[in-house]
């Protein structure tokens, strides 16, 4: 057994983005301890600086390919792109909540957020089952806590559901991993692939694959492991919900993209089929249930489930181009969903409810925000010229190319169904006037929140009109 | 596993299978251990009474036997002949099991203690961890006693006790890390063997942390909140009487004895002492009783803490101290 590690040969550059996030999370945590009450609002800005610094360092190692720490940690373009998406969306969340009451100590909130980001980044880079599991726990544990931080009945219930389901899925994931270890005696993805190649397929391998699908399927909220998602999106504090809607899924998808083609390469058709089934189930269930929702965040929760379905199409295709279009659509989706959550946050900050009827007359209260919300909704449906259209186009094109025409058709039909509920939001904002006797006054929005929403809106438009700006970066 | 080569030869000559030999030896050791525990408890209780009397300018027990030396036997006979009482709402199974679950771990701790050079029942590689982990099971017994009794004093006492023990396990375990680092082993015999200089000199911070958290672990004053007579009658074993009460009583003194022996092994050089090697057990015993005397000295000198003070001391003082000790030890070892 190799019991040495040559510290001087470790390429620390590969870890700089993670190190920066770790450093800033500790700084922020200590800031909560030592700063006076009045200066604690700086911690949000510090967090933002940390995220941007990490992003810059990520850009510095963009094309690096490295495997460090005896095969525990690997960096490649897929991981880097997903990390970048995570960092950008989290930075936008932090920018948005700079002037917002986060319902707990700022230092605690932002450090937990950074811990979760750190876990997700490690998950995206893990090349070993042990690393993957620990990183996954680091991702979800702060999420449970953040969900519970509001201490209302609803928030506690959501957190408890999230926690229990999360634990059960972690256990199943771990069981699958132990089976994989029992079959190969290895925990490294590549080593597992090496041990499995050229041998007949054992039944336990399929069982292990299914168990790992369950475990990671929970993470990305695919049907039938989605039950936590609507509750968490509805029950948790809005800043937390906006973070959860976008960021942590990047880790799940990165882990799947790294683990399945490599370690389960010998049973590739099986898992591609499983992902296709999950894709259809997620799309259909998510969209149909969303149709009858009146609470906007719950609606967005089911829409998130449906979008997991669209994203899973990329995994069902199981080609390099499929994964690339998944990543592109993931960016597009998380931007639009994040934007929608931030608009809900802007409303809630001014004391408005979060039901569909509370959006009545929104276009007159805040024309720019209403416009942004409308654009996000159109992008989520997939209406040209917004980014969602291009994303879906690439995904379904890959499905057709891989002879999964039926999957593409299901996807398109579902997009049409989803129009039903997204358009209700737009109709409420533009066509329905608020109830009698209620004055329609201009709504005040804090400047950072407004800036964050505007940035997202611009990004959604740019990515729709000129997707090559991003595609050339991820080399599609 | 326990069998030496001579015994193995003996067994094969007479056709006795190895497992039977192992079993027989295990039973013998169990009985011997129990006897040692019982004797130590008798001596400890007598010492406790006499020392406390001395501190309080009294005589202590004087009537039964010479200077009250047979008092404990009288007490034992009294307890054994008492009626076995169950509280009416008690959870019978839990109530019955609790004394055993509390007592057995305290007693199992002695399995790995090296009394002299090579005199140890089972010299585990993880002996140190074992001796730390085993009392942890006893905590469950204490909670069982509190819950099973259906008595508010018992419940509060057991909760306090469990909180205290769980909290102080952390600094206690961390304080020992420094010793493991210096000795390079978690085997108790190797730790003693490596102590050419007593670790109380090399690891003074660890010794203080260990001693204080040990006092808390065995619920000795100033950490006797679980059984504060003035508040909780008798804490978690308020409802127990007769035989079962004796088990708790036993467990408490065995724990005291175990704590003293462990401190001897870890910090006071174990069997090391002047003179030939076979005097080891004698040195060991002397050091152990010196340690018991120190614990009793503390017990009869310091007043009791409040529960919040206990928690503060554990988490905010001892834990950082233990961590700093690990850091310092590491740095010094790196430099040397």
């Amino acid at each position: 057994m190799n019991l040495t590690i040559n510290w001087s040969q470790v390429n620390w550059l590969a870890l700089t983005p993670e190190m920066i996030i770790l450093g800033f999370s500790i700084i922020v945590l200590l800031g909560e301890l030592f700063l006076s009450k009045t200066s604690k609002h700086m911690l949000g800005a510090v967090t933002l600086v940390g995220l941007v610094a990490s992003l810059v360092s990520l850009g510095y190692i963009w094309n690096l390919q490295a495997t460090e720490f005896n095969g525990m940690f690997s960096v490649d373009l897929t991981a880097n792109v997903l990390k970048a998406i995570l960092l950008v969306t989290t930075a936008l969340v932090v920018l948005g909540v700079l002037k917002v009451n986060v319902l707990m100590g700022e230092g605690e909130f932002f450090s937990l957020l950074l811990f979760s980001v750190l876990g997700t980044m490690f998950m995206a880079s893990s090349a070993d089952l042990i690393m993957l599991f620990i990183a996954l726990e680091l991702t979800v544990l702060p999420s449970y806590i953040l969900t519970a931080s509001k201490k209302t009945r609803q928030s506690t219930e959501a957190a408890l559901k999230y926690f229990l389901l999360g634990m059960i899925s972690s256990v199943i994931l771990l069981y699958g991993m132990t089976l994989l270890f029992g079959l190969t005696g290895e925990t490294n993805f590549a080593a597992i692939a090496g041990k499995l190649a050229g041998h007949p397929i054992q039944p336990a391998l399929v069982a292990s694959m299914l168990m790992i699908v369950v475990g990671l399927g929970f993470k990305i909220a695919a049907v039938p492991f989605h039950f936590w998602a609507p509750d968490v999106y509805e029950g948790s504090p809005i800043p937390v919900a906006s973070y959860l809607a976008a960021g942590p899924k990047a880790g799940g998808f990165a882990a799947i993209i790294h683990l399945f083609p490599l370690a389960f390469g010998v049973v590739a058709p099986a898992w591609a089929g499983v992902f296709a089934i999950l894709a259809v189930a997620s799309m259909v269930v998510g969209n149909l249930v969303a149709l009858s929702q009146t609470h906007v965040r719950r609606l967005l929760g089911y829409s998130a489930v449906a979008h997991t379905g669209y994203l899973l199409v990329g995994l069902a295709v199981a080609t390099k181009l499929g994964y690339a279009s998944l990543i592109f659509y993931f960016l597009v989706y998380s931007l639009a969903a994040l934007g929608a959550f931030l608009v809900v946050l802007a409303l809630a900050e001014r004391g408005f409810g979060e039901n569909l009827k509370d959006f009545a007359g929104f276009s007159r209260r805040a024309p720019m925000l209403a416009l942004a919300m409308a654009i996000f909704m159109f992008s989520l449906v997939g209406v040209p010229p917004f980014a969602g259209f291009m994303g879906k186009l690439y995904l379904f094109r890959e499905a057709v190319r891989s002879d999964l025409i039926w999957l593409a058709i299901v996807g398109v039909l579902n997009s049409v169904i989803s129009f039903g509920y997204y358009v209700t939001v737009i109709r409420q904002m533009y066509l329905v006037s608020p109830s009698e006797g209620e004055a329609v006054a201009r709504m005040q929005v804090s400047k950072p929140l407004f800036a964050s929403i505007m940035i997202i809106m611009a990004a959604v438009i740019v990515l729709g009109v000129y997707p090559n700006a991003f595609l050339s970066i991820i080399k599609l | 596993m326990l069998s030496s080569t001579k015994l193995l030869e003996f067994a094969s000559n007479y056709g006795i299978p190895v497992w039977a030999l192992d079993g027989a030896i295990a039973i013998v050791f169990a009985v011997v251990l129990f006897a040692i525990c019982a004797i130590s408890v008798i001596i400890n209780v007598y010492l406790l009474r006499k020392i406390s009397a001395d501190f309080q300018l009294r005589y202590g027990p004087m009537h039964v036997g010479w200077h009250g030396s047979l008092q404990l036997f009288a007490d034992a006979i009294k307890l054994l002949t008492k009626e076995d009482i169950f509280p009416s709402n008690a959870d019978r199974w839990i109530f019955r099991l609790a004394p055993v679950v509390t007592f057995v771990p305290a007693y199992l701790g002695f399995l790995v203690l090296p009394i002299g050079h090579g005199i140890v029942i089972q010299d585990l590689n993880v002996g140190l961890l074992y001796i730390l982990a085993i009392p942890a099971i006893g905590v469950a017994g204490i909670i069982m006693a509190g819950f099973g009794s259906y008595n508010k004093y018992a419940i509060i006492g057991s909760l306090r006790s469990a909180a205290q023990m769980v909290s102080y396990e952390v600094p206690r375990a961390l304080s020992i890390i420094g010793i493991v680092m210096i000795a390079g082993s978690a085997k108790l015999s190797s730790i003693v063997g490596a102590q050419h200089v007593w670790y109380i000199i090399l690891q003074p911070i660890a010794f203080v942390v260990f001693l204080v958290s040990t006092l808390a672990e065995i619920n000795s004053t100033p950490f006797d909140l679980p059984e504060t007579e003035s508040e909780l009658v008798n804490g978690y074993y308020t409802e127990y009487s007769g035989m079962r009460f004796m088990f708790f009583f036993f467990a408490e003194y065995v724990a005291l004895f175990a704590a003293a022996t462990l401190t001897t092994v870890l910090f006071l050089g174990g069997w090391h002492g002047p003179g030939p090697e076979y005097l080891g057990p004698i040195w060991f015993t002397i050091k152990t009783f010196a340690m018991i005397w120190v614990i009793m000295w503390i017990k009869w000198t310091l007043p009791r803490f409040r529960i919040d003070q206990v928690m503060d001391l554990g988490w905010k003082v001892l834990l950082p101290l233990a961590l700093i000790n690990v850091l310092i030890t590491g740095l010094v070892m790196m430099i040397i």
Partner: protein
Amino acid sequence: MIEQVIFFALAAVAIISAIAVVLSRNLFHAVMILGGFLLTIAGFYFLLNADFVGIMQVFVYVGGVIVVMLFGIMLTPHEANITNAAKLQQKLGTYIAVAALIGLLAMIFIRTTFITSPAEPVKDTVSLAGKLFMTNYVLPFEVISVLLLAALVGAIIVARKEEH
């Protein structure tokens, strides 16, 4: 031979106690039996010559987790005996599902050949574990420390009183 006897004895105790945990109506009893179950798991580790893991199992689970669970039970109001409101159909459905899952897994495992480690049992597991933590597994080891820090912060946040 004797190892197999011990293994099957431990396995029997483990299975029976696991079933008892699930079926017990009294939460306190269930947790106590769970403690016993976790001790048998420690027994398995000892049988596998993994004495360090075995001791840690006792230390962390029996001494820590079980005690904290008992704490939770004793500090929260609860009925002594929770009457299970499940209907017969629900119970039947659960039993059938569990039996089917066990059957399926058993079938899969019987048809699978797992690899066995050719390595000799390690004499000094503690120092080997320490070396592995500091070399091959140093990164996960450090990430766990961050995880524990997050858990500590989280425990305080969840447990403390509402300020507002």
